[in-house]
Structure formats: structure tokens, C-alpha cells
């Protein structure tokens, strides 16, 4: 695998964009009826609790838009990103959606990550009939609590991720599982999804240890882990997560149960940081493998180069600046779905927004490609949620090595809603 692929080289070869990119700017959009740009309102967490994610979501978004524009834009029109900061605040999020629709003349809204902002903003997008493409991982889209104008076609949801993990855990790590999770919604999503999935595989959840969110020391909770635990499933998040790992390591002294975690805990943190040594040999779920795998697809290699991250998922300009690699591909893929949807719908202006929704709802299989570097996906038009492969990696010598890829079928669950029955 050539790890030194340059950004331009990789993209031009792969995208077949060589001809388009070499044309002068005026010629690239010559076929368009209007050269008025397609305006995509990017609801960005520039400030607030989501800022670390927002920065990388922004970087991925800019890279995807550059590629789309280099290839000739959407329906021959250039794409323009209008980024508004929502402060990772649901009330502000709703205001931002309103600005997209009423002030900036955006064709669609896009890019929201944090669940509470999605839940706060989606109703307004529905009222304004603004197609709203979220990249949040939340199960709120497929649960039916949102509306027909809200879609999540570029990233899988937590419920599907968790249930896809269960067979691997019980078959390879152990059948007696203890869960440690933060005592609020995020932790409950894991608790509620994993328990039944483990039991369906013939395993057993021995204990569910909920940790108060403001806790910064964990040693008093570890004695609650049953002695016959074979797998410890942990999904701690927040500033104290490094302390959690360190104290867990000190408690077990390297002789504890198998560890299985979600990369959310250590997103944007170098896995080989001192203090995290205890994670050696443990397993993680990853939405996309941060560290380059030997069989990485050329699409993913090109994606890394375009976003500007190296083989360890860190910024090319600063190897210590680790990206939110497990999630940010969702922005890239969603933008390509918006493009595909607008092209299928023959999108010309705001009046075609319902047609865009219908075009995306009609999507099903999305093959692995430069538009989908994370892998093949299957979209469920009724629930507005996409399903895809999940990756399980093991820390070996400070590197996350992929040991398993789940099948799409393993992550599918019964429909909870049919948004297509709602009026447009």
C-alpha cells in the first residue's frame, strides 16, 4: 500500500475527475442552466461542547465539497457551503435552520452531530420543508420521533452499531459480560441495545454499572465488577475517560477480563498516549478504521489524502492532532448522497425539495466507492436511516488493527417508522 499518495494524485485518478478538473472554471459549469451555486447550510458545532468534533466535520466537509466542485459540481452547478455555528445548542440550532431557509436561501441543511441539537432543530426543518441531512449516529431518526424532511443517509446509528457487535463479543471474547457506562441517555442507548443482543447470542450480562456523569475517579466502582466477568464493555466519555482507563489498568494489573469499548471514548485521542498502555490487547468498535489497514481500499486512501490525515488518522500538518476519524466520514458520504439525490431528482431549485426527499428515499444499495469510502451501505427509505459495515479493531503495539468486519445484515433491526407515509 502506497502511503504517500498525494491528495491531488489520488483524487484525479480515482474520481475520473482528471478531465473536469483540468478545465477552466467557466467551462466546468457550462452545461448548467444557471451557474447559481447549490447552497448547503452546514450546521456546525464550531463552539460549545461539540467543538472538537465540529472542527473535523468542517475539514471533511470542505474536502468533500472541493472534490464535488472539481468534478463539476451538482447538476453542473458549483456547491457553496454556508457554515453557521449552532454553539452545540438546540435552541440556537433551530434558529440556524431557520436562517438557512429564510435568510441564506439554502437548498438543504446538513451536518449536525450532537443528538440534542438534531432533536431541537429537526422540527423546524420539517415545518420549513428544508431537507435536513444529519450526521449524528443517533437512533432518533429511525425511531420515528423526527419527520419526513430529516434524513441520516451517511452514518449508521448507535443501535445498529451495538447490536452488530454482540455476535463478535460472545463468539470471541466471552459470554459473561459486564457493562460500565455513564448514567445518562448515551449510556442507556448502549445498555438497552447491547443486553438483549448479547442474550440473543446465548450470552449473559452479569452487571450493568452506571457511573454518574460528573465522576472523576472510578476505583470505588471496580469492585462491583463480578469476578466471573469475561468481557468488560465500557463506553465512558468526557474528560475523565483517561483517568478511567488508567485506574482500570491499575485495578486489574493486566490480569482482568477482556475489554471492549467504543472509539467514542477516545475519539481524537492518540491511542498510544502514555497512560493508555493498559488498552493494549483490548478491542474497540470503530465506524471507520483510524489507523490504515493493510488492505485499505484506494477510495479510503484517497479520502485520507483529501481530508489531510495520515495513516494514523492524524492531521498531515501535525501528527499529534488526531482526527475524529470514526465519525467524520459521515459528512463526506452525506454530501455525496445529496449530490446523487439532486442529480436523480433533476434538482433545480427550492421547489424541487420534495423531489429530492423522494429521490433519497428511493436509494437502496450504495456500493463502496470514492463517494462511500467507509464501505458499502444500504439505505432504508422508510426509516430514513442508513445501515453499513462496522469494524472491530484490536490494539496491537499501540495500533488499532482490524480483526472483524460485521455484515450489514447483522446491524439491521425492524422498522419503527415509515416516514414515506407522511405528506411532503
Amino acid at each position: 500500500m502506497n502511503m504517500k499518495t498525494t491528495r491531488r494524485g489520488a483524487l484525479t485518478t480515482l474520481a475520473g475527475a482528471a478531465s473536469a478538473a483540468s478545465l477552466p472554471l467557466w467551462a466546468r459549469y457550462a452545461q448548467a442552466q444557471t451557474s447559481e451555486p447549490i447552497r448547503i447550510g452546514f450546521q456546525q458545532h464550531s463552539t460549545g461542547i461539540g467543538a472538537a468534533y465540529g472542527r473535523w466535520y468542517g475539514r471533511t466537509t470542505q474536502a468533500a465539497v472541493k472534490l464535488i466542485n472539481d468534478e463539476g459540481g451538482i447538476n453542473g452547478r458549483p456547491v457553496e457551503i454556508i457554515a453557521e455555528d449552532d454553539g452545540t445548542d438546540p435552541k440556537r440550532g433551530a434558529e440556524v435552520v431557520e436562517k438557512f431557509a429564510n435568510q441564506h436561501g439554502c437548498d438543504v441543511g446538513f451536518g449536525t452531530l450532537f443528538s440534542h441539537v438534531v432533536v431541537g432543530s429537526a422540527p423546524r426543518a420539517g415545518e420549513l420543508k428544508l431537507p435536513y441531512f444529519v450526521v449524528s449516529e443517533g437512533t432518533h431518526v429511525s425511531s420515528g420521533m423526527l419527520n419526513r424532511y430529516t434524513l441520516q443517509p451517511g452514518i449508521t446509528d448507535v443501535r445498529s452499531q451495538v447490536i452488530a457487535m454482540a455476535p463478535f463479543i460472545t463468539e470471541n471474547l466471552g459470554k459473561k459480560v459486564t457493562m460500565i457506562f455513564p448514567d445518562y441517555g448515551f449510556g442507556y442507548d448502549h445498555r438497552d441495545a447491547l443486553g438483549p443482543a448479547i442474550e440473543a447470542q446465548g450470552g449473559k450480562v452479569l452487571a450493568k454499572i452506571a457511573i454518574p456523569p460528573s465522576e472523576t475517579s472510578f476505583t470505588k466502582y471496580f469492585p462491583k465488577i463480578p469476578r466471573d466477568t469475561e468481557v468488560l464493555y465500557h463506553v465512558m466519555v468526557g474528560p475523565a475517560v483517561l483517568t478511567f482507563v488508567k485506574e482500570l489498568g491499575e485495578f486489574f494489573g493486566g490480569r482482568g477480563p477482556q475489554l471492549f469499548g467504543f472509539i467514542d471514548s477516545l475519539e481524537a485521542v492518540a491511542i498510544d498516549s502514555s497512560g493508555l498502555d493498559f488498552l493494549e490487547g483490548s478491542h474497540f468498535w470503530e465506524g471507520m478504521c483510524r489507523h490504515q489497514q493493510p488492505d485499505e481500499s484506494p477510495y479510503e486512501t484517497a479520502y485520507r489524502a483529501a481530508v489531510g490525515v495520515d495513516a494514523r488518522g492524524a492531521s498531515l500538518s501535525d501528527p499529534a492532532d488526531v482526527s475524529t476519524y470514526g465519525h467524520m466520514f459521515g459528512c463526506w458520504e452525506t454530501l455525496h448522497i445529496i449530490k446523487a439525490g439532486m442529480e436523480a431528482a433533476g434538482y433545480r431549485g427550492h421547489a424541487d425539495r420534495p423531489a429530492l426527499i423522494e429521490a433519497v428515499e428511493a436509494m437502496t444499495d450504495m456500493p463502496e466507492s470514492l463517494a462511500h469510502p467507509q464501505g458499502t451501505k444500504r439505505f432504508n427509505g422508510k426509516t430514513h436511516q442508513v445501515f453499513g459495515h462496522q469494524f472491530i479493531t484490536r490494539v496491537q503495539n499501540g495500533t488499532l488493527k482490524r480483526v472483524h468486519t460485521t455484515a450489514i445484515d447483522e446491524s439491521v433491526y425492524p422498522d419503527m417508522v415509515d416516514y414515506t407515509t407522511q405528506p411532503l
Partner: protein
Amino acid sequence: MSCAGLAHAHAAEQGFVLLLPTDIYIAAGGATVALTVLLLLVLPPGAAHRLFAVLPLLAPATVRARHLTSLVMTLILVLLIWQGLYGSRDPLRNALPLMVWTGWWIGLVTLQGLLGNLWRWLNPWTGAGAMLHRVTGQAAPLRYPRRLGHWPALAGFAAFAGFLLADIAPTDPARLAVAVGLYWYAMLLGLVLFGPAWMVRAEAITVLMRAYGRMGALGRAKGRLALGLPGWQVLTRRAPPLSLAVFMVVLLGTGSFDGLNETFWWMGVLGLNPLEFPGRSAVVGANLSGLVLANLGLLAVFALALWLGERLARTGRGLAQALCLFAPTLLPIALGYHIAHYLTAALVEGQYLALALDDPLGRGWHILGLEDAYVTTGFFNTPDTVRRIWLAQAGAVVAGHVIAILLAHALAVRDGTDARRAVLGQAPLAIFMVGYTIFGLWLLASPRGI
């Protein structure tokens, strides 16, 4: 939330801070300040005062040159407001929020406090005021009512603090452009109507900058530009009037609350989950109340320490007089905490500011040659850099308190109290300052939820 919403809840940085032996660092910081107090007990009475000796340098520049730079600043401000209204909607790309919150509030306030009164050159009103005066030939038609003192500036600063800490989107370019534009216009009107007294008593930014300017190493002494240990100007100037003294206390109280409102502790008080912070819109009322309570609390504790000190030393000074005399000693503490609190934001947003200045009008320019440059937060991701950043922050806090102790002692001795009684009278204030050091360091070490 650090800088008015330019927050960096960077879990990795805080994670590494939680792994540092901050308890030991905090104890060491507190001990340093306490040792300073003990040292003053054994040193000869004038020792503290001599530390603040002054070295005269150059003759000061002319007023006309300052009006010229002020006019340039006005022009820049107009360009920034135009960018705020019509430039990028992204607060991390638009030059206005970056210049206001990172360039001025973090950067310039810090430089003003370290170097001296740069605001004299950069104030965007005085040049315009002088030009209007010259064009119309009219002097200010009204006299500034003396009894108002600096209270209008305090009201202005309170409004600023409310915007910084409780507004839902203080970095939104258009929202900020309107606020800055209206404020600039209103204060220019005040300047035209009431003359320069308006600037130095009623305009909150100028009062704030001049207060911090007292801390600068450079200042005026005997008609010349002079250099000394930061704080020397506090000793050479007259004690401020009561309204300005209260302003100085509020500077510290507001800065402290700016740190406090981000902590897990404060989230706990509000009953919020710090890992799922619901956003600024959920804490508008709470932050405004907290801001008022924090300032009233600080004023009460500071006044209590002074009152006890005056009783012990039997100086015969009234409480208001003591407050005016010692309030400037809080300036180095406020400045030290300002630097510490905003250091992490400065490291990140400084990069965004550089990128914005590289292309100030959003035209794809690269004036500074920063093509293909990415903002990094990699220094928050390694234990070594995080430790260095934290110790730099702690150093600023401790240095601020040490200077505060030295200044308080020098002021007490200068005021005619004999050294033993001065030290005795200072004991309550010293305890307050050691306690405040520990509080400031605790704020830096606490996990934050925004």
C-alpha cells in the same frame, strides 16, 4: 465555554490535566504566595517598594500621532463590522468575532496589562472625536456630571460581561457586528457631547483598558516613558475613586465566574449533566444570576478582609477609603487569571485569527502565505504539552498573586503605617489572597463541561 463561546471542550486536554498531580501543584502555588507574605515580615520595610523602582526611558509621543493611529483603528473597525454583516457566517472564519474575542479581548487586554497603555494608541473613538471637533470647531456642549463618577462604565462592563457569559451566540458575526456598531456609535456620541471625560469615566472598554494599563511594565513617570516591575504604576498613581475601585473588583469577580461557570461543580449546582451540556440557551438566567452573585460575593469577602485588617492595624481609615487604596492590588490577580483562563483558547483561536487575517475579506487571498494551513489542537493531545500549558497557566495565576501581595504591602507601608502594624493589618488580606490563589488554580484543574 471559554472565550465568549469560542469554547474548546477538548476532552483530551482536560483528560491529561486530570492525570496531572494538580493537587501538589495547587499546594505549591498557595505556598509560594504564603511564603511571599512571610518574606515581607522579615525584609526591611521599604523592600517591597524598592522592587517597583522605575527606569525612565523616552519622551512620550505627541497627541497628534495617537489621533492618527486611532483613526486607522476606526477604519479597521468599520471594515470588521462590514465583514461581520456580510462576510462568512462561520465565527471561526469571520474576521470580526476573531478580532473582537481573540485579538482584542484575549490578546490586546493581555498586552495592555503586561506592557502598558497601548489603548491610548488603539482606541477607535478619540481620533474620530478630535476630527469632528476640528471640522465643526465646536467644543463639547455638555459637561460630564462629576457625581456619576465611573458608574456608567461599570454598567457598561456589566452589560459586556452579560453578553460574554450569557448571550446565546456572542460570536455570531452579524449579531456581534450590530452590538459593536451600536456601541461604537453611542460612545462616539457621548464623546462628542461630553468631551474626553466621557471616555475615561463612562466608556467601559477604555476604563477597563486603562485599569489594566496600570499593571503594565511601561508607563509615565516624571513626564517620560518609564519601565518597571508590573504594578509600579499602582504605587505612583493616586488611589482610584470608589466607582473605579468597585470596577476593579468586578473585573476580578467576572473573570473568576467566567472560569467557574464551566466547571463540573457549577453544572452540579445547576443540576445539569456536564457530559451533555444542553447549550448556552439553557443557562442564560443561571449565568446572569451567577455573575451578579459572584461579584457581590467577592466584593463582600474583599471588604470583610479590608475591614478586619483596618481594625487590626488601627489605621483609622474608613472602609471605603481602604477599598479605594487596595482595589488596584486585585488587578494583577485579575490579569493573571485572564491570561491563564484564555491561554488554551488563544492557542487555538489564534490560529483561526491568523487564517482570517490571511484572507480578511474572504476572497481566497493568502496575504500571510498560509495556503493549505490547518488549525491544529495537537498540543492538547500529548501529556507533555498539556503539562507545560497547565504550568504556564498556573504560573500566571501565582505570579499575579505574588505581585498583588507585594503591592498591598508597599501601599500599606507607604500610607504611613509602620511595618509591623502594616503586616498585621494585612493578615486578613493575605489570607484572602492565598485562598484566591488556591481557588484560581482549582478552577484550572477542574474538569469542565463546556
